[in-house]
């Protein structure tokens, strides 16, 4: 893994590695009466990838979605506890979720490009955050597409519909779109589970590259993927955070028996 990206040096100087970029404190999430996530304490460091693993319905996706307040869009969902971003509780009622979501980008399981051209998909976010200059937009689009290794594949057809791309290309476009507003944190909800192995490995390479600059949180059902891309792993079960540690510790020498059982495929 080569650390070559020039911007990573800047990132390293302004953001001390190791300090938490984002931290959940006693975070509980309810769907109506049901407590889907139970008092979770979890922090994510800058320049690292954290994998959230656990059986379906264990609350890991719900937890992820609450980190940029996407659960607000679901009727009946509510969150208790705090989420700290730069010393600010973003779970507090007065938070400006619009600017918050600009700082915390998100990528979904199913690629969800807008019904627009490839160019417009990437330019969508920056436009809303005040970039009107065409040349500036062009630069953002090109750099984001380059970051996601999509530029060479799409540079001749930027004005074509994004829906005409393959699934893997659409997903990389969605990542490019998330990068376009220059977030600090990237949340990924099973970003490769709907893709073929080749596209999956491309996404994984991309994650390894992006973590130089971003704090990445990824939900995955693929144990191999968690082991390959993440620095830290958190195991969720029935809404509880069971164990959180360095990935190699979780996968080789977990503390809790439940974690060991899940990783070795004995349940879930």
């Amino acid at each position, binding site marked *: 893994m080569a650390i070559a990206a020039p911007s990573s040096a800047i990132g390293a100087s302004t953001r001390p590695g190791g300090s938490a970029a984002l931290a959940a404190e006693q975070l509980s999430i309810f769907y109506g009466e049901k407590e889907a996530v139970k008092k979770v304490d979890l922090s994510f460091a800058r320049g690292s990838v954290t994998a959230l693993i656990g059986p379906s319905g264990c609350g890991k996706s719900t937890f992820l979605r609450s980190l940029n307040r996407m659960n607000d869009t679901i009727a009946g969902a509510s969150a208790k506890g705090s989420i700290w971003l730069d010393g600010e509780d973003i779970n507090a009622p007065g938070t400006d979720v619009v*600017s918050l*979501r600009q700082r915390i980008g998100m990528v979904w399981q199913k690629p*969800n490009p*807008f019904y627009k051209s490839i160019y417009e998909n990437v330019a*969508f*976010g920056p436009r809303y955050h005040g970039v009107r200059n065409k040349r500036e937009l062009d630069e953002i689009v090109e750099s984001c597409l380059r970051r996601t290794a999509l530029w060479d594949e799409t540079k001749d057809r930027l004005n074509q519909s994004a829906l005409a791309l393959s699934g893997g290309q659409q997903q990389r476009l969605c990542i490019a779109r*998330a990068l376009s507003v220059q977030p600090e944190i990237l949340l990924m909800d099973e970003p490769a589970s709907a893709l073929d192995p080749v596209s999956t490995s491309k996404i994984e390479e991309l994650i390894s590259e992006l973590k130089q600059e971003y704090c990445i949180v990824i939900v995955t059902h693929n144990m191999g993927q968690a082991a390959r891309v993440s620095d830290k792993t958190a195991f969720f079960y029935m809404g509880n955070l069971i164990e959180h540690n360095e990935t190699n510790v979780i996968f080789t020498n977990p503390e809790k028996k439940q974690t060991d059982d899940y990783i070795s495929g004995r349940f879930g």
Partner: protein
Amino acid sequence: MKATLDPARPGSEGAEPTSRAEASSEPRAEASPASAAPSGGTPPRPTARRKSRSGGEWFGKTYTLICVAVLIVTIFSIVYFVASKGLSTFFVNGVSLKEFLFGTKWAPDGEPQSFGALPFITGSFVTSILAACISAPLAFCAAIFMTELMPKFGKRVMQPVIELLAGIPSVVYGFVGLTVIVPFFRAIFPGQGLGLAAGAVVLSIMILPTITTIATDAMSNLPRGLKEGSYALGATRWQTISRSILPAVIPSMLTGVVLGIARAFGEALAVQMVIGNAPHIPSSLFESASTLTSVITLSMGNTIMGQVQNNVLWSLALVLLVMTFVFVAIVRVLERRSLR
């Protein structure tokens, strides 16, 4: 799981029936086909059952085929009937097609007779397009409100209300138009109040449910990820609606508008009650006018089958029919484009 798969121990079969049931039936059938057959795992189908099944298949196929045949025959005979009657105006009675389509004088009983249908054609187009212009913005906003802003209220209150609107008989619309809208126009604009504007307003309310329902369906059928993707980029709700949802549903919305225009084009009774029925091209929206449908319903009873006065009404009906086909074709094109 391994233990339950073991076929070598017949004793265990009765001993643990529950764990057996939990295991999927397929590996069991593979492991011991002989023991699986009587218990009904995947036994070969009895021939009698297969026969009755294929009988049902045959019946279903024939029945649906008959239904389709009836539909097709009905549609084609209507088209044939209207076309043969309508075209005989030109081929039997010798009315010139040019005069019919572009003539502005309508005097079927006059001396000399004159069959210019342009006033009705323009009347129909102006009222329906005007109606769509009034109705479409209302319908789109209602759809946005019902799906994005207040989905609960929208589903519980507004949707039933709008569906109710579709169920009101057209004579009621016409009556309300005649007693409310016509006097209103008469009070503020010169003229009798009867005219294209009154017709368009009445029609716009009648086609509101069509456009709203189609727009609402299109918006609620959008993939959820689309909205989330926009929100996650820090777009506000309005930005999300205007820039990410609306572009995705525009083809469907246009389909709704075209279907609305088609419905307005074919509506007869309500329009006839408020439009004034003067067979000329009006110079203002508040002047009495006619549409294709209104002139057909008004004149049909006064003509004798086979005469030119009757045939020319069929020609008007043919124009309506052709326009309907055109609208359907437009909808088809729009749908195909939205799939892309």
